[in-house]
């Protein structure tokens, strides 16, 4: 996977700034993510990790700078953002499954409504995805009847249903009971193994170390340090990175 550095760039972020009112949350971010690369973003709470991730699929409008994803200029006001988003899957900390739909309806919604697939085809795809995350028998269950780990696996299957090129994970395991973290990380690891381009905001340092090609350490709205996991975790150069790691490790 380290060969990915030479692959063409899937995500390109240049001088990205984001403010909420007068509060500047992102203060000039530059980052490249190559095809098939797995990038983990770590950093203290409130440093802007989620905001950074949400700028990639325009859940937040950027204040300044450029974001290019999968060949689309996300910051161009004329871009068809719905089309861009169909190339980017996103998984949220709190799953955000649709409670009024069954598991399989959750997964089928986007393919059917975007007319990408007919109902029968979408159902077949959805069942395959559920098998992949080990939840085929829950197809007709309501989200409320699932455990946290199962919900997050359904959410991943839902994001995969549009067959995205890129997956974004925002603290996908933070809301889970410890015994369920493993099952979700395993699904993510499998995706990485299949060569999916991914950006993960995570607090699971062990997992980041194991799965990441590159780690970004964010603090106060900037990328403070970045490098291969063994560099960041084994030999951090910045004082702030050291302080942060000494607290969480």
């Amino acid at each position, binding site marked *: 996977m380290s060969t990915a550095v030479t692959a063409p760039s899937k995500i390109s972020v240049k001088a990205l700034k984001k403010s909420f009112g007068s509060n500047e949350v992102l203060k000039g971010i530059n980052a490249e993510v190559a095809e098939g690369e797995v990038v983990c973003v770590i950093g203290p709470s409130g440093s802007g990790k989620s905001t950074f991730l949400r700028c990639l699929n325009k859940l937040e409008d950027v204040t300044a700078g450029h974001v290019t994803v999968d060949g689309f200029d996300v910051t161009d006001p004329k871009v068809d953002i719905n089309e861009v988003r169909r190339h980017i899957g996103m998984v949220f900390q709190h799953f955000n499954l649709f409670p009024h739909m069954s598991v399989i309806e959750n997964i089928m919604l986007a393919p059917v*409504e975007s007319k990408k697939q007919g109902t029968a085809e979408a159902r077949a795809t959805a069942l395959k995805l559920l098998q992949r995350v080990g939840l085929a028998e829950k197809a007709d269950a309501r989200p409320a009847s699932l455990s946290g780990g199962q919900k997050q696996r359904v959410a991943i299957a839902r994001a995969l249903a549009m067959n995205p090129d890129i997956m974004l994970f925002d603290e996908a395991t933070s809301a889970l009971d410890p015994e369920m973290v493993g099952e979700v990380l395993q699904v993510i690891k499998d995706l990485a193994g299949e060569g999916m381009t991914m950006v993960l905001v995570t607090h699971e340092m062990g997992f980041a170390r194991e799965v990441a090609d590159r780690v970004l350490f964010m603090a106060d709205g900037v990328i403070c340090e970045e490098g291969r996991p063994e560099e960041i975790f084994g030999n951090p150069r910045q004082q702030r990175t050291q302080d942060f790691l000494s607290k969480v490790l």
Partner: protein
Amino acid sequence: MPRIQQTGAARPRTVAVIGALLALAAMFFGAAGAAGAAAPPAAALPAAAAQAGAAPSSLSGKTFVIGTDTTFAPFEFRDAGGELTGIDMDIIRQIAKSQGFAVEIKSLGFNAALQALSSNQVDGVIAGMSITEPRKQIYDFSDPYFESGVQMAVAKSNTEIKGYQDLRGKTVTAKTGSEGETFAKSIADQYGFAVKPLDQSATMYELVKSGNAVAVFDDYPVLAYGISQNNGLKSVTEKEKGGSYGFAVNKGRNPELLKAFNTGLAEMKSNGQYQAILDKYLKDPAKAAQSSFWDLLASSFPALLKGLGNTVLVTAISFAVAMVIGLSMGFLKISTNVLPRGIATTYVSVFRGTPLLVWAFFFYFGIPQLTGQPIDIWVAGVLTLSLNSGAYITEIVRGSIQSVDPGQLEASRSLGLGYAKSMQKVVVPQAFKIMTPSLINQLIIMLKDSSLLLVIGFAELLYQGQQIYAGNFRITETLLIVAVLYFVVIMLLTKLANVADKRFNK
């Protein structure tokens, strides 16, 4: 009765109210028309000239719409079966028959009937109305068909009060704006009593029976009829000399109708039919013995059920319209754009900030005077209820949509669904679930509020109840039946709505 005094005092008051309403309207519809519409309504529509020269014979086959009061027994009231009856009704129907025209009676209420006459919603009014100078300025009157006068009555068991001189320090009642009130007030100082005016004969009699007033001053025929119906009162004085009642048409309009009325009346007087009608209501009262509660229930039930049907229907239609308004306005309200949000906010504050009754009057009486076009009472009723309720539903919709976890919209958007699709498939279904209990609540409030439409003469349940007790003076029992009917329907509705909620909002 709001009969003599009315023209002097109440009419300008009504005009002022309508003027105020129109000013309110002008705020919404632009300033145009407000000044013009506040002018005397009698000046409307010059069409009368075309009919002016017509001979009475040309009336045959024609139908005239006649406005009348709702609760002025024995002149007009509903019999136990809900049919309009009374001296006025018998006279106008008899004259129509003998003069060869047809009448469509609209039981609107006294003030409403006069409003309707001014705005040419009706062709004539017969409503036990005294012929007075101020009224003659606005309407053309027939020859008098009844000589009235004020009389005093006390509770049957009262042996203390035998004349005006026994009223010192006591309270009496009389109908607001009526000849009775004028007379009572004119002697109040001399005999040292206070006057508490009320709106309806039936409620005045209850006040006297309950002891909250010792005596009532009312028109002799009304009182005589009530006493003959066992209303629990007795008269203790002779009637004072009073006014004459006449049939009215709008000034300059329908002269042939007026002529036919006079001809018909003269015929009736000479052939004895007229006296027979008076005797029927004043001398030979239908029945002296009070029927049982169950008889009352059985006889009033058909009329009440008809009212209930109207209540349910107008509520159902209005609620459907209110839902459309509320959903649209609710969405405007959460828009990020100032203009749609401003429209929705203005709408909500206007209709939440003004009483339902004002709009009922405005739509039914104000709009026709603005446009010159009569408005159907169902349209006015539905507009009133739905615009009022729509304001509340707007807020319910807005609140419910905003209380759906924003993560739901984000998840849907992140999947590449557009805003509208995401709202439709993800947010609104969840918002519906949240809003259902509030909507059921709103529906029940509307069902009860629909009773307010009785002020414009809409024949809903409570209105039908009033019609019945205005004829038989059994207020408490009639209202009890009405209340039970509302209660039962609302119980059923609540059950039904909850079942539907469980079914569709799993």
